[in-house]
């Protein structure tokens, strides 16, 4: 019996990675599994995938999926720079960045913002647990005001919300989810990858060792009690036919540039994901009410991505040779004569 394969002919196992070294029950491990599912179902060719990360628990995870793909675990908070450079060298690569809240909202906040400002075509997943796990439980900058550390210390600072920052900067794709909500995370990962431009996906991912207690707002129980999804998300890749059999007025359909669709089924109040002001309002209201709003908050499918703005060719720059990169002998002689 032949194994089930995806549309590029690969079995699900082709998307697996090395065994995780994170704690049992870590939200990040769930995200890794969602990633495997999303990449498998999307039919991403492993050799075209570039898994990028910074430093921290989250940044170790690219080793745990698609082992045959290239990956780059760089320095703390600088995944965006490495991603930008690699993307410019080879536009054919699918840039998939994995970062954490320490990596993104503290040391790497500047790079995070400038990546968005340039709209570099990449997916940026924040595995957000509000704590520094590897250094044993200090607050990170996404920890909510008043939330408690395991030993009782209270966070006295306002949180930096990566989604709010991204929206303020005009990011072309902003979504939030919860590691325990695979039904939502998987289509959002697919949509983020299919999107052309910087796609920010903030996934609250509880740290079972340091931030899963009462008083934490990044624990499994708190998120389960306070999660408020704005819409049911499903993703239809370009290679599948669209069957929308919802009642008119109950769904929104966002067509991405590669021909895939994000289909959003209304849950409560109707949210227009192409309205940035509305997305900011949704976040602000949820914050005021003490909820965690999840789903696709905002998408702009028309914004030009960085490589297009820069007018570099689809053909990878890394493949150019002497003939294209050097001046010809005649050009060189002419140029030198101008210095005389």
């Amino acid at each position, binding site marked *: 019996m032949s194994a089930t394969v995806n549309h590029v002919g690969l079995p699900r196992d082709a998307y697996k990675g090395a065994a995780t070294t994170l704690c049992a029950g870590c939200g990040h491990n769930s995200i890794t599994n969602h990633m495997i599912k999303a990449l498998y179902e999307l039919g991403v*060719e*492993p*050799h*075209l995938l*570039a898994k*990028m990360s910074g430093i921290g628990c989250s940044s170790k995870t*690219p*080793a745990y999926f*698609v*082992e*045959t*793909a*290239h*990956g*780059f*675990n*760089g*320095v703390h908070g*600088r995944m*965006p*720079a*490495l*991603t*930008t*450079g*690699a*993307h*410019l*060298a*080879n536009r*054919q*690569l699918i840039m998939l960045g994995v970062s954490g809240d320490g990596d993104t909202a503290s040391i790497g906040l*500047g*790079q995070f913002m*400038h990546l968005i400002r*340039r709209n570099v075509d990449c997916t940026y997943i924040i595995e957000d647990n509000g704590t520094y796990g590897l250094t044993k439980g200090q607050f990170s900058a996404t920890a909510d005001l008043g939330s408690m550390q395991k030993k009782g210390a209270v966070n006295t600072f306002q949180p930096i919300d990566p989604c709010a920052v991204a929206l303020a900067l005009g990011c072309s794709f902003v979504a939030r989810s919860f590691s325990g909500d695979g039904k939502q995370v998987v289509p959002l990962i697919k949509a983020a990858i299919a999107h052309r431009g910087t796609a920010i996906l903030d996934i609250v991912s509880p740290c079972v060792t340091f931030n899963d207690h009462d008083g934490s707002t990044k624990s499994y129980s708190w998120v389960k009690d306070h999660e408020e999804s704005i819409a049911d998300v499903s993703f239809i890749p370009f290679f599948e036919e669209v069957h929308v059999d919802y009642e008119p007025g109950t769904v929104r359909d966002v067509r991405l540039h590669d021909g895939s669709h994000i289909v959003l089924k209304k849950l409560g109040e109707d949210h227009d994901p192409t309205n940035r002001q509305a997305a900011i309002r949704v976040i602000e209201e949820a914050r005021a009410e003490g909820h965690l709003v999840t789903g696709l908050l905002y998408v702009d499918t028309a914004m030009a991505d960085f*490589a297009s703005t*820069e*007018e*570099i*060719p689809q053909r*990878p*720059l*890394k*493949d*150019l*040779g*002497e003939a*294209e*990169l*050097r*001046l010809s*002998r005649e*050009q*060189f*002689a002419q140029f*030198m004569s*101008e*210095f*005389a």
Partner: protein
Amino acid sequence: MTEPIVNDLTIQAATVNGSGSQTANLVLTRAIFHMGVPVAPKNVFPSNIEGLPTWYQLRITPEGHMARSDKVDVLVAFNVATWRQDLTTVRAGGVVIHEEAFSTAEARTDVTYYAVPFSKLAKAKIQSDTLRKQLANMIYVGVVAGVLGIPWEALEHGVRRQFLAKPKAVPINLDAIKVGYDYWQDNFSKEDPYRLEAMTGRVEGKALVEGNQAAALGALMGGASVVAWYPITPSSSLCEYFIAYSDRFRVDPKTGEKLVSVVQAEDELAAVGMAIGAGWAGARAFTSTSGPGISLMAEFSGLAYYAEVPVVIFDIQRIGPSTGLPTRTSQADIGFVYTLSHGDTKHIVLLPGTVEECYEFARDAFDYADRFQTPIFVLSDLDLGMNLWMTPEFKYPEKPFDRGKVLSKDDLEKVAGEWARYRDVDKDGVTYRTLPGTDHPAAGYFTRGSGHDENARYTEGADAYANNMDRLVRKLETARHALPAPVIDEAGSSVGLIAFGSTHAAVVEARETLLSAGQAIDYLRVRALPLSDDVAAFVERHERVYVAEQNRDGQLFDIVRLALPPALVDRVRSIRHYNGQPIPAAAIIEPLMDREAVPA
């Protein structure tokens, strides 16, 4: 009147920053160069947009000396704020061309004054209100030309050459020069000995090029296709020239697409990160920076060293530490850059000593980076990078790119996917890599700055770590023999001199001067780190060897001593110059005279 002094003088123009004086100075430089007379300009400028004093020194010697002179023969005093101080810099018997309104009461009597009413002339003779301030500087070009006897044809050439891209500006600038030229003819008679006369044999086949222009062209010819930078003096012009050259030569004629990407990053952390990301993905990539920027690049440099990612990093040195003197030159980054990063790190550092080498080393740096899969630092400085230097024309590269040990899909098929990223197959310390996008299931590996085994897998294993670090030493040893060898010029003297980078110009002149005083000095110019074995051999052949450099602590002196067997260490002495002004020959001659007791 005394004996004429022909083609051997230093002009110093003291002006106000942002007033357009640099254009006037360049016109003067190009006019004199056009006469066949060697020129060596040094622009001493402030960290300021407008208003602070600035000086432009134009050294003219029949021999073509290119180091800064510490004597001024002809002062053009255009800045009232520095007038009194500037006057003290002129040598006895020198010439002072000054704004008539500047008082000469109680001033020196051992110089020749030519008082010119520059402001009044500008008001009366320059019609354009908007351009008057800039064009006023051209008036002094005319006066200097009158004093020194620069032919009108040379001035015309200088203006046309300076305004190659703006031919419309040529007539108005020439008109302004004519105002000064005529004023001198009509109002003065020659009272000083300085003359310029056309000559042959020194500048033919030579160009006037800035080191940063040369390096930008080198990077273009070296195949750089991803560049990330953050503006910083004195490095910015390297990237700006690269952008200008790319706009001209790197546009696909069929599609209009750019065959290069240049990113102005948010800071130097991002700039070097982008270059490393691009190098990892297989493009030839560089960044360029100076002091504060190189400090910020330390962490990423360690990653690229340890994860073995090719990248080229230019450091156009300026005076530090901290902000230091941002517009003054220095060679004080060499020690820091050599081991940039925490942990055991040692980098390949190329040390161009001429503008031609700025071009060649910039170009070849990309081959070294690919070949040795490591950051290549190219260490230039403000003097070399931002001043114009006479140089032989650059040579067209005859060799194709050396992309190093990269396994393609076909290569991987041949070995049935059996390879390991950090396995030393060839026993030269240099391992094989694959690029992202290589369509083979065995191509992928996980690049990391954390401890890794031969297969690039995470490990904290003691042996794996130590073995890998030992291999990196082997790799550097392989590289050491492939880098530009020292240039040695010796004639059996017992005294030797070692220098690098822009100090070269002062060494050349110092050796000529000392030779004419009866003291031959042998010379070795270091062109790369880690040091070649030639350095120890050179020390061994000499009783005393002086290391001359432009930093306080004798950084190359230390590096040289560390590379010597104990018996030779005491032979080495240090000559240091570190006030931000390009080193003059005198700074080498004087200590050598003192310590070597050269017979009169």
